[in-house]
């Protein structure tokens, strides 16, 4: 009897805990707002898009031409990282150490950038290794929309929508995070809005509220 009572109490406690927990994190199925997965390379948008001020479409070149903005090929990273193998701070540190040790400065590669070299099949100094093949970096996709939604970046770029309107202020994000819930209601908030604020001429904008704008 005692054991049974204990079991029942435990069960009630467990259910209670579940309710409390689920209340704080409850969301609609498929809603991944604030999703911020750990990526295979600690790539910083704050550094690249913020500090370095690289335009979004330098890497995400598909946005203005295709439905996918695209994730840049590793060879695109190498356009810069052929020359940049570590942060400025790291180099300064190495320089100080070299001076104090009385030796020549060595070339150094930061841990994260060495991952790019590895993906390309290069050695730790970013030099190709004969006969070694590369392997693409497997990034974790952050912004997911269901298969029954057709979303294309192209018309949004054409209409002059700012990348940050949907993706948040990536220039301050160390790791990329989904800031909006990407729900249909959220899409329609904007589609219903007066489009005067957009760059495009008013006659070229129209209320795109038909179901088949996105669902087919």
């Amino acid at each position, binding site marked *: 009897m005692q054991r049974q009572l204990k079991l029942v109490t435990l069960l009630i406690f467990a259910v209670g805990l579940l309710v409390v927990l689920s209340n704080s994190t409850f969301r609609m*199925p*498929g809603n*991944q707002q604030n999703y911020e*997965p750990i990526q295979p390379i600690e790539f910083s948008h704050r550094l690249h898009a913020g500090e370095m001020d690289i335009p979004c479409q330098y890497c995400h*070149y*598909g946005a*203005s*031409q*295709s*439905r*996918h903005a*695209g*994730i*840049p*090929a*590793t*060879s*695109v990273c190498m356009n810069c990282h052929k020359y940049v193998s570590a942060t400025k701070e790291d180099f300064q540190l190495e320089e100080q150490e070299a001076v104090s040790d009385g030796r020549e400065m060595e070339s150094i590669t930061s841990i994260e950038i060495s991952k790019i070299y590895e*993906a*390309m099949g290069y050695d730790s100094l970013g030099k190709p290794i004969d006969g070694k093949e*590369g*392997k*693409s*970096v*497997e*990034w*974790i*996709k952050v912004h*997911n929309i*269901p*298969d*029954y*939604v*057709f979303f*294309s970046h*192209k*018309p949004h770029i*054409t*209409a002059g929508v700012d990348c940050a309107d949907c993706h948040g202020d990536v220039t301050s994000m160390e790791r990329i995070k989904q800031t909006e819930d990407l729900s249909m209601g959220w899409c329609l908030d904007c589609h219903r809005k007066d489009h005067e604020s957009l760059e495009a001429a008013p006659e*070229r904008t*129209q*209320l795109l*509220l*038909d*179901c*088949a*704008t996105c*669902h*087919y």
Partner: protein
Amino acid sequence: MSKDKKYWMSKNEISADEVVAGPADLQTTSTDWNRRDFLKTAGFSLAAFMTACSKTPVNKAIPFLIQPEEVIPGKAYWYASTSHACGSGCGVLVKNRDSRPIKLEGNPDHPVSQGGLCPVCQASVIELYDSKRLFNPMISEENVTWDRLNTNVVQGFRKSRKNGQRIVILTETITSPSTKYYIQKFLKKYSNAKHIEYDPISYSSILDAHEVSYGKRILPQYHFDKADMILSLDADFLGTWISPTQYTKDYRKNRSLDADHISKHVQIESRVSITGAKADKRYAKSVSEIFQLAQDIEHALQSNKAHGLGSELATELKQHKGKSLVISGINDLSIQILVNRINNALENINKTVNHRSPSKQKNGSDLAVAQLLSDMKSGQVGALIIDGVNPVYDLPEGEQFSRLMESIPITIAFSQKETETSSQCNTICPSPHYLESWSDDEFTSGILSMTQPTIQGLGNTRTLRKSIASWAGIENDERILVRNYWKKNYSTRKKGSQSFNRWWDNLVHDGFVTIKPFPLTMGIFRQGTLPKSDFKKGLTLVAYPSLQMLDGRHSENPWLQEMPDPIMKLTWDNVACISQIKADELNLNQGDIIQLSSNNTSVELPIYIQEGQHNDVVAVALGYGREGTQRFKNIGPDWIQKKDTLGENELVGERITHLLSRQEGNIVFSGIPVSMTPTGKKADLALTQTYNTLANPENTAPPSMKVRPFIQETTFDEYKKDPSSGAHHGHQVVTLWKDDHPYEKHHWGMAIDLGACTGCSACVISCQVENNVPVVGKDEVYRRRDMAWMRIDRYYSGEGDDIDVAFQPMMCQHCDNSPCEPVCPVLATVHSSEGLNQQVYNRCVGTRFCANNCPYKVRRFNWFDYAHNDELENMVLNPDVTVRSRGVMEKCSMCIQRIQEAKIEAKAKGLPLADGDIKLACQQSCPADAITFGDLNDPESDISKLVEDPRHYHVLEELNARPTVGYLTMVRNREEEKGGNHHG
């Protein structure tokens, strides 16, 4: 049109109950376990499982390692190439998404396809992603390297030379000049080698007849656009004969209703073909009668002495001297010589029958294969190289061929798939699909067509060209082999003065180039003597290539297997078509299995009762019963009451080539005497037109008027007098609906010209490819659950063998007053601001009310999750269209993805959308240009003009659904039938 002319779909319509009730064995009687019990239990189970929900899956995004130039993920690229699926050599544009071809469209600039594409070519893209293809070279069923195979083969060749045996290269017609060149090189190296060409669907007698009449073995080019009178003796030139897409395009050119006169087309045929359906006048004749008729016409042209139909036709033909065209699809030397004599007497040579730049699409010789068989019998063949043909299946002597192959030391098969022949060969050379290989082809002399790879080869494959060249001692890349040949030869054949690099780049870019044809001197016409032809009277077999299967090389293509035959509406089977009278005579019903015997062999086939068929003819489609179709055993959804797609032989359909015979060496396809005996067995036929038929009850007609027919028809003379002839005027529509839905921006509309539509079903397959329409299998079709968004309704009119056939492509009509929309409880089907009826899959809960309320019966319900397990095959899916899941309704979306894409493109360019910017999948592929699509709000658009055309009408107009899809009255060029116009 005659007042009493009535079109009907099937005899079932007479007893309407049958149509509603469905196949008898599918009607459920009460069982212990009924639907409600099932739902209750399922509901509980669902609730139980709900507690075990899983986390959102983690998706990975894997970019390229090295960015390829100009490739942007998600953007489609188009490459010009050439289709090798049906052998007519249509130029295609290949839609390439993320480095994989997903859709083929006719190349509008190409002189053969002229923008259209047949269903077989449309469907051929899925064969690229066939995971059961041959991917590795093999010797005695063991994977080997190409080097090892080459050494082995060359040793074999040397040995056979030493033994004084022949090396035989047996292929279908080779159209590639470079392949021919490398074969010549090979023949030079091995003096004991020989090259034999044959075509499984043989045109051998046409070629032979030209040798008799003109001294040169050629296949002329036929110009249907230049003919005012076309007489076809059993040639299905709009369906399967030589180059149907090209002929359909040409045929339509001389049928513009704006002209003073249009061509007249008379079809004399033994079975019912789509060409006969399209004809202005169709006569059903047995093969012996056709032979007699050809003789009569010839006599009448020479001596004016004949009488009856022959002299009537001759008189008519004589009025169009130099502008008439007589053709025959019967593979018989005497008939073809008669055709040559007739065309010569009518002065058609080099006018409608072009000898100057002949067709090179077919060059095979039946006689050569017969010779090969006797060589094999006498043990003279030491090595056999086979490419593109399947003699064990194709030839009447297939079994014998297979036995004789066993004694040949080295047998080499070039094949994409395992075939009846390749499984008998000891060396297998896997061939690439044409979408992953280089080729140059001269399908018609003077036009060089280019084939370029649009995907990296999926297997370790090589073309015949490369292997033969390598065995002849020339090692090089596939591309270099083709390029080098032309580098050497372009100067003698090019037109203009381009440099070679420029010329080559243009060729690859455009997909074709015009070159100088080889000069050809034809001999002076000779009457020639007719070989003794022996056409038996009585019941005869007509074996014909069906539109889907042709000679059977595409039998492993699920799309084509499930494509309904345009006339029979049959899927997944071949049948013995007989007339109603014959069936009554033998007391047979549709689906009864009979035994068909000839030449001491027989085959068991189900009966199909075909309207309009000659009483003495049993028509059976070739290309069925192919080994390899076993793979379809498990096609379709897996569930408890599932029935097999395969027949008793564990294959799809039955092989009939062993019933064929030979005459003067040529294979006889039609007119073979057969006997028919009932077996007492019965088969289920998966027909699509026993259901989803339109009904137009009398009570929907306005007071004191009749309901309007689905097919409106008139004659050319009547049309010229009154363009609205054939139409039914004066119906007033009473409406409850307010006209309060203005379409401000666009209002999409479509019009289909019934006069143009040949029923070829290219649109059906094109739609299937574009919109990811699933294949459901034979049993599901039988259960009336096929998923085709677009179907072609076939109507008959008339009695006995004198019938008219009409086709009506039917898809969602996008009604402005859609009956489906108000009944949807969840607003899953709603109207767009551009006049489209939208289906929202993620909202649909599957009540199926909409399908019930649709008068056009075009909605399709996903009863299951249809198989998408084959990862390689899934590469063919269009990424722009959702793959629908179980429990949702779907239907034609008017290719909304194409509309959206065109709008996005226009916006990006800052230009307004122009008429013709959007081409729907069905419209694009149509070889007859029957489908027009555009913006009804644009008064200058083609569609707006057609809507104003007096021929324009709506099906079921009296229901006031106000469809945006309209039809144009069919116009036939014939004498006015008795009775006046019906003006309601």
